């Protein structure tokens, strides 16, 4: 694994905008960064990332039957009691799930360490599945990268296959928060793939979803029987239509049981069951009050994009990221340093579609906590 500088494609910004990638630059800061790429060997990809991803995914799924039948664990994970039955039923009915992303600390040597599961509303999908794929094709076409270079990125193929095969109601609705251009981009990409696979796909703004007699409805009052929502379950369960989730005849992507895996509380539960596993870091439930020791990271059960994460390196350096996720419990996880390449710290997001590993996306940040201001860099496989 190494980082290699490369000339950005001339005019890539205009191309990006022409294919729906409006958020390549966020608040005048670059988000898509093609001034360098990461290079992996095939063995690094297959042995250190692909195989562990599928194994960890299966280990996490194996925890669910115990969790849904344990009031103690459901409480520890901060699941509101009135939804315990619904979570359990969504699991027992085997409601289909689409995708997720694991974040790893990995430097090319030794086992990748699982930092967390983003299993409810993972983003950076378009950047991974489409834009870095096109980047590689372009750079090969220009003769800048060798023909033999490959990429660990079957994301779009696998998503298309999933949409074609999953038992989803039709029409199927896709929804995101109105104000977020980035989320709309992610949802547009998923809808595009769903359309290509033949699914009758429609968009509705999350705030425009209606409720008639306990049934979620679209703008015209038709029942919404299938809904992809790029919006956290833990938010939805606190909002006005929370009770409609229980009464509405609606299949959700991700299904409600994914709330258990997108939860940072899955990390201590994984550690309890598989203590010492090479890809796991020691993790424990935390009261959020006691002082953190050097070499530990504290995260809220529910948080996104590095918000409200607190960290002390083994050398005693303290880092704290503010944010809006202060209303849940916490976990404490052993610190695993992100590898440093130049001035940046590098995080690997490893995608899962259905139950298969489907590729990686790489993000860099100037800090040890990867945030929404981080940059996305492409990668190649070349031995």
């Amino acid at each position: 694994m190494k980082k290699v500088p490369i000339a950005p494609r001339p005019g890539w910004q205009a191309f990006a905008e022409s294919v729906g990638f409006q958020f390549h630059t966020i608040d005048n800061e670059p988000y898509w960064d093609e001034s360098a790429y990461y290079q992996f060997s095939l063995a690094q990809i297959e042995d250190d990332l692909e195989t562990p991803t599928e194994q960890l995914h299966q280990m996490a799924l194996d925890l669910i039957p115990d969790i849904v039948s344990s009031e103690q664990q459901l409480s520890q994970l901060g699941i509101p009691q009135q939804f315990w039955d619904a979570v359990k039923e969504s699991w027992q009915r085997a409601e289909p799930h689409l995708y997720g992303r694991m974040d790893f600390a990995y430097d090319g040597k030794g086992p990748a360490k699982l930092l967390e599961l983003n299993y409810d509303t993972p983003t950076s999908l378009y950047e991974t599945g489409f834009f870095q794929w096109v980047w590689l094709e372009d750079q090969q076409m220009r003769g800048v990268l060798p023909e033999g270079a490959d990429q660990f990125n079957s994301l779009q193929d696998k998503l298309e296959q999933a949409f074609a095969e999953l038992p989803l109601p039709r029409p199927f609705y896709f929804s995101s928060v109105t104000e977020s251009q980035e989320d709309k981009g992610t949802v547009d990409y998923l809808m595009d793939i769903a359309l290509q696979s033949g699914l009758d796909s429609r968009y509705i703004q999350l705030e425009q979803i209606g409720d008639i007699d306990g049934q979620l409805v679209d703008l015209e009052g038709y029942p919404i029987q299938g809904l992809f929502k790029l919006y956290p379950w833990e938010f939805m369960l606190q909002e006005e239509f929370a009770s409609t989730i229980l009464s509405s005849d609606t299949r959700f992507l991700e299904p409600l049981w994914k709330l258990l895996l997108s939860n940072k509380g899955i990390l201590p539960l994984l550690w309890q069951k598989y203590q010492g596993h090479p890809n796991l870091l020691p993790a424990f439930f935390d009261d959020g009050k006691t002082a953190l020791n050097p070499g530990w990271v504290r995260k809220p059960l529910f948080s996104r994009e590095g918000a409200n994460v607190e960290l002390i390196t083994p050398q005693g350096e303290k880092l704290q990221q503010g944010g809006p996720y202060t209303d849940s419990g916490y976990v404490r996880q052993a610190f695993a340093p992100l590898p440093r390449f130049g001035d940046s710290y590098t995080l690997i997001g490893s995608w899962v579609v259905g139950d298969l590993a489907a590729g990686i996306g790489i993000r860099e940040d100037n800090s040890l906590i990867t945030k929404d201001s981080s940059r996305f860099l492409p990668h190649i496989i070349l031995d």
Partner: protein
Amino acid sequence: MQKKVFKRSRKAALIFMVPAATLVLQGCGSEQAVEAQVFNTPDECAAFYNPPAQCQAAFAEAQALHPQVAPKYANKQECEADFGVGRCETAPEQHAQGSFFMPMMMGFLAGQMLNRGGMAPQQQQSAAAAGGRNTVPNQPLYKARDDQSTFRTAGNTPVASQPGPTQVRPSAVQPKPATLARRGGFGAQAQQRAAAAPRQTTYGG
């Protein structure tokens, strides 16, 4: 010879996010208009060479749909402003100050007359069998105060200016429940948290 196994997608195409491709998509998917019939009464329907029993059935379906799909008004004046004096009636729903009002049914659209003379029955049946939004449901029709010659659906789509056969796009004439949905029940957390962290650009992660 061993074939190289790639770790990346065979293709990564977009059809919907790319504006030029969207045009093509719309071209391919453009909807065919289908034939339906418009009548004032079931007797008039039968006079157009249709089986009287089917005319009665279509009329009854339209009548049953009428209170569900007709536009609702909080008072009679607002309703009559749109549909004309003496052309509104009490709706089944109540609100705190009294009844809702809705326009009277002024005719009906018959979408699935099966054995009409002169038309191939298989064609009609296959359209009906396709179900969903490709067919034209039997439904009530209305007339606006300032345009008494045009039959309109409850959704205000004009369908004909005289009784008899007409061409309609099925998607434009799907009856919609006029029940008022509650909206805005999702998204409040995003609002609150955006206020706490204004730079946050995603609710994914």
